[in-house]
């Protein structure tokens, strides 16, 4: 019976089963030479790593290049990989280091205006359109102020609120204690609140209510 199964269907089934595997299992199998596992990992995380780098202040073209570099480093580190911790903390550790490395290289020409992101004007006309544009501007302002934070506070903030990592995972990724991760989050929030006061209308009103 199995001899009648078209090879194509077998391949699809194999791919589907890989997608059901945990990150650590995929990485371990990739380390051991199993084909297809790395593809699934890249597909699963390329958008997240790209988003992480964008939120860390890189332009889209830079972020895409760096994201590819991150996966290249992950692949090259595969022979040394041991699933002693979550794959995601390993992945974000590599991504942050790649970002640090790149930032150090091009700090003299890194653009942080509007958080490094282009702000399109959106649809014109109408109250909703104006609200959308105002919201976009506020987000861009937040991104700009994020880029001005000390890197260690920026990273903690982006990993927590942007990437949804837990404080424990942030602590692992940044090689700090969970308490320090929370401290960095608190400090980042404090600085952002102070720096956005008076510049984002809603933030102004909230500050004035205290």
């Amino acid at each position, binding site marked *: 019976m199995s001899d009648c199964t078209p090879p194509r269907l077998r391949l699809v089934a194999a791919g589907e089963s890989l997608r059901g595997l945990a990150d650590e299992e995929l990485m371990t199998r990739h380390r051991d030479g199993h084909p297809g596992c790395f593809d699934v990992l890249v597909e699963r995380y390329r958008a997240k790593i790209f988003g992480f780098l964008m939120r860390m202040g890189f332009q889209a073209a830079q972020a895409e290049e760096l994201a590819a570099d991150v996966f290249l480093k992950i692949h090259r580190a595969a022979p040394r990989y041991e699933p002693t911790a979550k794959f995601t903390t390993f992945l974000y550790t590599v991504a942050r280091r790649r970002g*640090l490395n790149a930032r*150090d290289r091009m700090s003299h020409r890194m653009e942080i205006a509007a958080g490094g992101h282009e702000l399109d004007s959106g649809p014109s006309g109408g109250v909703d359109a104006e609200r959308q544009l105002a919201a976009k501007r*506020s987000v861009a302002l937040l991104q700009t102020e994020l880029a001005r934070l000390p890197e260690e506070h920026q990273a903690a903030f982006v990993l927590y609120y942007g990437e949804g990592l837990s404080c424990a995972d942030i602590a692992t990724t940044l090689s700090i204690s969970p308490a320090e991760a929370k401290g960095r989050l608190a400090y980042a929030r404090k600085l952002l609140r102070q720096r956005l006061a008076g510049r984002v209308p809603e933030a102004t009103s909230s500050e004035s209510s205290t």
Partner: protein
Amino acid sequence: MNSSMEALDLLLALRPTDLDGDELALAAGVPAEQRMAIEAADAALTALIGDWSDEEFDAPSFTGADILARAANDTDEAERPAQLDLGVSEPPTGSGSSWWVPVTLAASIAAAAFGAWSFMTPTETSPEMRPKSLVNDDEASRIALQFSVERDGAVLPGRNGASYGPADALAFRFDLAGEPGYVALLEVSDGDWDVVYPLDGATMALDQGVHVLSSGSGSPLVYRPDDGVAGTLSYVAVVLSEPVDPGRVVPGLLAAGLHRADLWPRPVVAVDAVTVTWE
């Protein structure tokens, strides 16, 4: 928002799964009026963070196959800044490369108490190539990075500044003197850097003595470059007095130069480096 409110603000802003028992109790004990005041004061920032985190980005177009093809072609020749300052008269030159570690066993650091390799002659050093006295005067740690070469089943002493071929693989060991420290091994090529070991942002806590980078079974981890790679790479052992992510201090360390202990960022206390050219 005053300081006492700020302290509570974070408790209320964190996901409950990130709060420990004491913090959960503290958050639950915040009077309703105070909670409402904090939440009202924080509403705008919370909404703004929500909008920011909801922003979606188009996924990059590259695939795993693209990455593997790039690795195979060794096209990672991105722009590179100034070369690593080893404090030598003629800094090494050459293209960068990447590394494979063929050993797939559980990696760990272990005291060198096994195998003839551990007791071999230390790495031959060349004064003109090897930075000397790479130690912060304020600290009492000192490290010597040594390596051996595996070739066709034989183990040979590693020679700093030497050239090796595709049949060779390196095994590293650290000789730490003085105070215990936290050690990481870096790979540096033309100013680009990566942490070779540990992989996860941690460091290896070492006491004084000789330690071999080894697998869980006790055999040394061996390293060799990708096939077809030629160029000069430096391997840098960094000793930290605190267990911070070595990635935080590497840019400052490389910018300062390995021979400028007075300019090293804290908590770097000792450094040693070897350079190898792959043919």
